[in-house]
């Protein structure tokens, strides 16, 4: 299985519900700066661009990590970060060509999307999006 989030930029209205759902579910607090998904707002172009880890096959972040804090979940294809193992060196943020491993402002470590690893309802952001701009897709089926 290789699952991933997929973003339909045209549908995003910039409400930030996905960021609030992500931090609410994973951290128990509503904080956009903790979210593993972010909306980049291009106000002048009238566009909002959601971005998060696309669970790429190459997984540069996983290979770059010196302490093996990022592991592959073979059921979903997600690259899952262990906060307990992470030492906050941030090499993964440099290795990721998409810029989707995020700084965590208070712990000094990093966070990344793990597709809400293990949650039977699927990723919280997908369920929270009022316009279905975020899809949860199975790449192996394509």
């Amino acid at each position, binding site marked *: 299985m290789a699952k991933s989030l997929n973003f339909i930029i045209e549908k995003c*209205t*910039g*409400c*930030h*519900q996905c960021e*609030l*759902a992500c*931090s*609410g*579910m994973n*951290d*128990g*607090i*509503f*904080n*956009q*700066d*903790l979210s593993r998904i972010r909306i980049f707002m291009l*106000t*002048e*172009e*009238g566009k909002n661009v959601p971005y998060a880890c696309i669970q790429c096959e190459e997984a540069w972040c996983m290979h770059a990590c010196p302490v093996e804090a990022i592991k592959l979940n073979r059921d979903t294809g997600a690259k899952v970060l262990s906060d307990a193992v992470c030492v906050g060196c941030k090499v993964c943020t440099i290795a990721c060509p998409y810029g989707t491993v995020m700084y965590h*402002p208070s712990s000094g470590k990093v966070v990344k999307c793990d597709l809400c690893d293990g949650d039977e309802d699927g990723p919280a952001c997908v*369920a*929270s999006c*009022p*316009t279905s701009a975020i899809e949860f897709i199975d790449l192996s089926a394509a």
Partner: protein
Amino acid sequence: MSWAKRSLRVNLSAGTCTEEPTNMEWAAQYLGQRGLATKYLTEEVDPKVDPLSPENKLIIATGPLTGTNASTAGRWSVITKSPLTGAVACSNSGGFFGGELKNAGWDMIIFEGKSPKPVYLHINNDKTELLPADDYWGKTVWETEPAIKEKHGDPNMKVASIGGAGESGVLYAAVVNDMDRAAGRSGVGAVMGSKNLKAIGVRGTKGVQVRDPRAFMKATNEGKKILEENEVTGTGLPTYGTNVLMNVINETGALPTHNFREVQFQDASKISGEAMHEEGPDGHKNLVRNGACFACTIQCQRVSKVNPNHWTVKDKPQYQGESGGLEYENAWSLGADTGVGDLDAVTFTNFLCNEHGMDPISHGATVAAAMELFEEGAITEEQVGFSLKFGDAEALVKITEMTGKGVGFGKDIGMGSKRLCEKYGRPEFSMTVKGQEFPAYDPRGIQGMGLAYATSNRGACHLRGYTVSSEIFGIPEKSDPQVTEGKAGLVKAFQDATAVVDSVGLCVFTTFAWGMPEIQPQIQAAVEGEYSVDELLKIGERIWNLERQFNLAAGVSPSEDTLPKRLLTEGAKSGPSQGKVAMLDQMLPAYYEARGWGKDGIPTSETLSRLGL
């Protein structure tokens, strides 16, 4: 929980920023935002104070749900004494500023005194500082906001600022955030300008904690589902925005036009929500897309573009991009009320109002009054500088630019319709209550709105008791718009419920789909203490009476609970309500009774003590 439990007091005279605990006892009694800040205002400000003097205070307030994932929970308010009405002002805005302020860990900012020089407040979580605004004073909102973000090198910063209108004391100047969202009404921007406060720039990364996150998310998700399935909040508003009302209200015979001389506008369809969707012969479409405020799943915002070939923007590339499009109120005031049926000109004029920071409702309505003064010969071409007739789009644009910049006859327009019409000897042309201009519903066609306008604590306003919901849409129950019976109780119920919604940090548009039983679980899971539906409505009533008490002490007499003579004596000229006047006298005594006030409109001591006031 869900409160930051601290507020920031900024003494502009002394140049100090001081942290203090938010009064949680008051928060329990008044919820937050509109209610809580009004409590602070009544405790700290003499109601008789000159609104533009240093003794007045300006309070920026969030609610307990602001910054959470409850749908529409990005609301914030500006509370002060209004220079337009002399009554309490509470102007509510969306966008992203409110959520950011809460995320920085502040419930409220209380501005007091007056800065000797132009300043702006910079907040980055715990760091708070007043900085010189010499570089920004004289600049528009559209120039100031990006310049402040650039200075601090942070595109994620959120800014609320005033433009030329607030600086020059336009009595209906707004505080504008996120370029095109505004705390628009009652001249809160003029108070900010009088304090030499140009802007507030805030960045917050602390997050907002609720009492029970899982229960809260369950409650908010259920609420979101109801909004999604509701016809108005799930389909009508996202597709057509508030301007879906233009054709509906015109057909009802309640669309005031030509300064309320008539109740139906021949060009209504040309400036309607539907027209914004239409592609013109050259392929241009006014509406680019819909947008959302912070955490909003209704997403009614219009992102619009003026046709680049239109005369308003042809040689002005800075106005050819996307920006906040027409709401129903603005399309009405700048269009129908002035008799202008040119969608591009009205959209452009709305851009100008955002850019210069002024309330498009009051502005359009004041221009409409000026047009009547002009046509009746009370003001002349020499005084204005050009002809100012109904339907003249070029004159509308010109006078708007002059008002925003505070030059020429624009200075007279900036006084608002009441003072303008008094100055030129025809006070009867001013369509105002307590000095504030009417919004877009003619009470001759929707009787309940007449009572709502007459009794609104901030002067004529549709957002203090929106009985249009019931009288036109049948939400929660249909009532006949031409009937006065039962409207007293209806208006009171809407006023009290709206006070709760405004105070908790939600958008009033949710109430098309949510009643208090849908809102209560969201509040309950977020804050400490027990809140039943009845308790919440009692809080709403308490807030209403507190505002009333402030106004009475300020010298706003119950005799001002009335409507302009035109609406009380001149019948509607066409439509389903032809011949009807606003029958306020049939509703007002019943309203005072329903409120537990004396026949003189003053709350009885029993009522006050029942509400703990």
